[in-house]
């Protein structure tokens, strides 16, 4: 699983892509991931120079290599305007994948090595980034790089894509207007967990909380948190709190099924009128992003029973992102349920776009009108019929479906 993010490289190294050059579709996808990436980079490159002016959405990036000494810096596109949308994950789910990757890879990453503890006593550069991480309106900026920014774009299953990077020599932002709710937290010495929950309950959007958290603006002995870790930390913290609330609510009355199909991924969410348990099951059939060579469908899953789980989910950050999306809905309904989230990636899911996509796709499902059933078996059958993957594969790949079908409950033997 750890190899996920290097898969495109592996393909390239194995020679497959070299023979194909994006013309024969040897990898089984409807578009070549390397080409999509390349085109986006070219578009940015055309306008790049060592002295750059642009409007940061605002955005920041905290790297993880070399931890606890990591690269941080602003994200700046090579143009000015109302660029806020470029760093608001909540608005991306209706985009098509090419436009999305194009938009994200036009964000140039400034880089400067700092120690994660420096967040407690930031210099001018770091303080500026912290302010930007807490701001909602774009920040017109001027950046002077050592050389013309270039290099690999960041694409991975956890983080949203980022464009080329360059060592930053000087960074001159225009005025930054910080979100008042986050600013207040910044001066309160609240533990990070409480800060995150407080902001979430105040209605601050996930992506803004996560960005500010990653820059070490919360917590008592705050540190910089690499972007990809911060996403899961915030998903986990918020969703754990939601689940705690859910356990006090009565069960839903009837089984229901929600569905969403965006960006080459089908998500189906089954809610059963039972006590809280949760699972995310993913199916990658041959030819899909992470199963390009396989001959059989590849199923992965992680689950928790009522008591929750202590160790990190096998399938990664998407587990926590989907838990947040279903948790929100149940808290809004003030109901408890057993939740099974099924995901099937389609061949047109040509490259990983980041864990935000799981959160927003499941949120999109939970906003849809559910199908409501009288009977749990009907609900499960309907849910499994929404996919290309056969029913049997889902059942074998899912702990909770397996339990649902085979494990009886005591009330099933009630003599009336």
């Amino acid at each position, binding site marked *: 699983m750890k190899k996920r993010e290097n898969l495109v490289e592996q393909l390239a190294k194995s020679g497959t892509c070299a023979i194909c050059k994006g013309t024969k579709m040897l990898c089984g996808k409807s578009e070549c991931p390397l080409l999509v990436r390349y085109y986006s980079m070219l578009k940015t490159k055309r306008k790049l120079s060592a002295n750059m002016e642009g409007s940061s959405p605002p955005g920041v990036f905290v790297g993880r290599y070399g931890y606890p000494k990591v690269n941080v810096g602003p994200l700046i596109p090579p143009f000015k305007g109302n660029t806020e949308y470029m760093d608001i994950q909540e608005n991306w789910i209706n985009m098509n994948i090419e436009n999305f990757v194009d938009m994200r890879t036009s964000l140039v990453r400034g880089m400067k090595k700092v120690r994660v503890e420096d967040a407690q006593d930031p210099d001018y550069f770091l303080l500026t980034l912290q302010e930007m991480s807490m701001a909602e309106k774009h920040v017109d900026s001027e950046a002077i790089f050592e050389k013309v920014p270039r290099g690999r774009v960041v694409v991975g299953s956890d983080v949203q894509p980022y464009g080329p990077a360059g060592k930053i020599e000087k960074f001159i932002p225009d005025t930054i207007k910080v979100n008042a709710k986050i600013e207040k937290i910044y001066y309160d010495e609240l533990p990070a967990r409480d800060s995150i929950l407080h902001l979430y309950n105040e209605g601050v959007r996930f992506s803004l909380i996560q960005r500010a958290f990653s820059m070490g603006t919360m917590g008592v002995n705050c540190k910089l948190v690499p972007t990809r870790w911060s996403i899961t930390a915030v998903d986990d913290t918020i969703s754990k709190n939601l689940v705690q609330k859910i356990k*006090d609510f009565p069960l839903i009355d009837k089984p229901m099924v929600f569905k969403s199909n965006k960006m080459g991924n089908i998500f189906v969410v089954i809610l059963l009128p*039972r*006590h*809280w*348990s949760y699972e995310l099951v993913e199916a990658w059939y041959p030819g899909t992003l992470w199963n390009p060579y396989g001959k059989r469908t590849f199923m992965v899953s992680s689950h928790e*029973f*009522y*008591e929750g789980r202590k160790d990190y989910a096998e399938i990664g950050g998407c587990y926590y992102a989907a838990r947040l999306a279903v948790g929100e809905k149940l808290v809004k309904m003030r109901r408890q349920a057993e939740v099974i989230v099924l995901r099937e990636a389609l061949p047109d899911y040509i490259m990983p776009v980041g864990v935000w996509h799981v959160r927003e796709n499941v949120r999109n499902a939970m906003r849809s009108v559910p199908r409501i059933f009288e009977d749990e078996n009907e609900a499960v059958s309907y849910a499994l019929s929404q996919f290309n993957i056969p029913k049997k594969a889902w059942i074998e790949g899912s702990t909770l479906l397996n*339990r649902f*079908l*085979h*494990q*009886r*409950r*005591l*009330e*099933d*033997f*009630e*003599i009336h």
Partner: protein
Amino acid sequence: MRLKMDIKDLKEITNLLLTLVSEAKFEVNGDGLSVKAVDPAHVAMIVINVSRDAFLEFDTEEEELGVDLDKVRDILKLASSGDIVEISKDGNKLTFLIGNLTRSMPLIDTSALSVPKVPNLVLPAKVVIPLKEFEHGIKAAESISDNITLRITPTEFEMYTQGDEDEARLNIPRDMLKDLSCEEPVKSMYPVDYLVKLVKAIDSADSVTIYMGTDYPIKLEFEVTGGKGKAEYLLAPRIEGE
């Protein structure tokens, strides 16, 4: 309310309940103490009845106590074996006194704790088996599969597990069992993790009485608190095929 008991007995009751729940409603009256709990998945249930004779002191009206068992477990960690614990209720507070140590905790609102209905089951076969043997059968299965199958025939009791390649089997003939009554063979499969936790928590009993049917819940009966109490544990079966 004032109860005095061996720490060992409190520990046994708490550990048994903790295999299924983290909160429970205890009922005390002139006869003793009783508690019922069902796990959140509704797969297993335990009913414990402890006679007042199990207590060193038993001075109480009829009471319902909603107790956070995780907190009780923390208290048990502070005690040594052989200690006596005195439990008293004052308003909405439950106080544990062990030696010179006092630890109190708020009671949980009992209306928030559902008391499970004990299903009425017809279980045609019965065996009485030494706990040690039962434990063996379960531990052998644990590393092989998530499930264990139990079978009673007129001549023997059998526990077996089939993994992809591995297999474990424990057979006890009739004459090595304390009791066996069975007219037709019965067989059911159960989730092994529940039984693993259960046998770890059983402390006083030397033997367990098993009641079973085919594709039906199992009922295990065993002694608690040194024979002055009794527990009943019900576990729903797994059914193969759709």
